[in-house]
């Protein structure tokens, strides 16, 4: 029961954030130095005469008052109708749906790869504290925090695709095309997660219940999996939720480098075409995914550690 009410409360807190995000993405179009109607005409190669501008303004719904426009935008978002692209004249929603699978697959594979690598790495690093293996893991974490992603991508291309010819250069036709991009994206995540897990495990291993478990004769493996890991994983889950934004920012750059026809690459193209409806919708979708990711992280945390929901109810922190 308690978990249910926590879930509902947490979902309700999303509403004002999403409203704010929809307003920011709406406002973006009002910040343009050029009239969006003129931008539309120049993208479509139509001569910007007075009546053409008027016609486009009413077509785009720019001739009604500010707040009515915002209400229309909100109503559009509720119906998942993102308008029409200036450039391709197709509906933005269908353009997104065509590209979403690639980006979603890339993000998901990277996240899973990051978790699959960083959990053992964190454990090994914590158990062998200050041994060579720990130093290696920490050095990797340091690299992950300092390497620029786009450069890492090119280094991988240079060494593994150009020199070794192990992986194809550009495209998204089979799983082989996903190896380098997802590794690029996962690398900095691995660094963050393994370090967080290491810190959590080291803290957890100092707890009195570990001593008690040892006194009961439990082995290191059992103590780790049954008692310590559960708590040490929590900051990693939070970080995973927070890092979704970084992951999606990464897909924008990585998709462009590896020529993958996903949403991120499409977004960048639209930036150069000044295709405002696409930009506006894309950042709203990103905000939505980001907020949803944070929600998921919080819920997983509450599931791992039910005490969190109780704290929330007391109204403390």
């Amino acid at each position, binding site marked *: 029961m308690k978990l249910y009410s926590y879930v509902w409360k947490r979902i309700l807190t999303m509403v*004002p*954030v*999403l*409203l*704010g*995000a929809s*307003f*920011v993405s709406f406002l*973006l*179009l009002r*910040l*343009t*130095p050029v009239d969006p109607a003129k931008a539309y005409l120049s993208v479509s190669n139509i001569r910007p005469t007075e009546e053409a501008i008027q016609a486009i303004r009413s077509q785009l719904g720019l001739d009604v008052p500010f707040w009515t426009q915002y209400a229309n935008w909100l109503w559009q978002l509720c119906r998942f109708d993102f308008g029409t692209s200036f450039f391709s004249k197709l509906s933005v929603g269908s353009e997104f749906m065509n590209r979403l699978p690639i980006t979603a697959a890339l993000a998901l594979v990277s996240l899973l790869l990051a978790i699959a690598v960083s959990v053992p790495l964190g454990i090994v690093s914590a158990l062998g504290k200050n041994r060579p293996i720990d130093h290696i893991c920490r050095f990797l*974490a*340091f690299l*992950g*925090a*300092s*390497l*620029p*992603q*786009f*450069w890492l991508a*090119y*280094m991988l*291309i*240079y060494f593994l695709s*150009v020199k070794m010819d192990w992986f194809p250069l550009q495209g998204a036709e089979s799983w082989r095309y996903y190896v380098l991009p997802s590794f690029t994206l996962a690398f900095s995540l691995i*660094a*963050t997660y393994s*370090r*967080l897990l290491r*810190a959590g495990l080291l803290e957890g291993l100092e707890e009195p219940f570990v001593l008690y478990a040892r006194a009961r004769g439990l082995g290191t493996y059992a103590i780790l999996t049954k008692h310590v890991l559960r708590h040490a994983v929590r900051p990693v889950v*939070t*970080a995973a939720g*927070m890092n*979704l*934004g*970084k992951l*999606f*920012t990464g897909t*924008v*750059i990585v998709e*462009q480098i590896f020529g993958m026809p996903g949403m991120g690459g499409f*977004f*960048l193209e*639209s*930036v*150069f075409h*000044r295709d*405002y409806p696409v*930009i*506006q919708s*894309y*950042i709203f979708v*990103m*905000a939505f995914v*980001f*907020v949803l990711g944070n929600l998921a992280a919080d819920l997983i945390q509450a599931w791992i550690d039910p005490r969190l929901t109780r704290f929330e109810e007391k109204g403390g*922190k």
Partner: protein
Amino acid sequence: MKDRHKAFANLLVRRRWMLYLSLSVLLAVVVCGIFAPYLAPHDPSFVDFSHKLESPSWDYPLGTDQLGRCLFSRLLYGTRVSLGLALLIVVACLLSGLLIGCLSGYSGGWIDHAVMRVCDAVLAFPSLILAISLIAVWGAGWKQMAIALVIVQTVYYARFVRGLVINLKQQTYVTAARVCGTNPVRILMRHIVPNMLPPLLVVVTLEIGWVIMDISALSFIGLGIQAPTAEWGAMINEGKSFIRSHPRLMIAPGAMIFVMVALLNLVSDAFGENKGFGSPLRRKSKST
């Protein structure tokens, strides 16, 4: 127990050694950047087709690019661009963040509430993606990029400062000052802001590195500093077409970014308070 003290002392010594080393290398790079006009063997934007794509030699320590420009000189000048712009952006963020955070944290009430709601709305977006969209609206260029980054980042600073202010506000000496009838601006300037400097210093060193990375990423995708200027990200973008024949054109500027960011990471890590190479700014707050 004694062993533990010893280990702690060792740690301190090692950390200090790290700090001095990374600080001095950092300083060396900064000095090289400042004195780039004297140190650079060539003009970074001098195009000379008779020397294009040359391998490293005495004349050209790192060789030349596709337009015959000296790669080494371009890297040196790139230090000025990246570091200068990153400093500018971080200082601007810091000032605006301090202003907004102090206002919001100290006054509390509806002002605080309104400011935090605005922050929440901006924080709902992945920061670099919001910056890209702002640049998309205004057009590519270094000024637009700087303004976009400042707007997006200020929110993090404001929230961080607000948290610090709320903590410091409850200190006895602040209450004492209020009882004496000191005006709020004076309390903030004399009692609160100076006490925020140590954590802010850690944040700022780390953020400079992150901003350098953001600048280079944005310039790399062609939205930031534009091509003829010697900037590391833009240089990687130019060099990427020569990845097969002349990889050094893309390896060298990337290595520079890496070294700068790594040094700044090491310095801020040695300053302490920073666990896990994540900026305290980005941590999940327990606000409201």
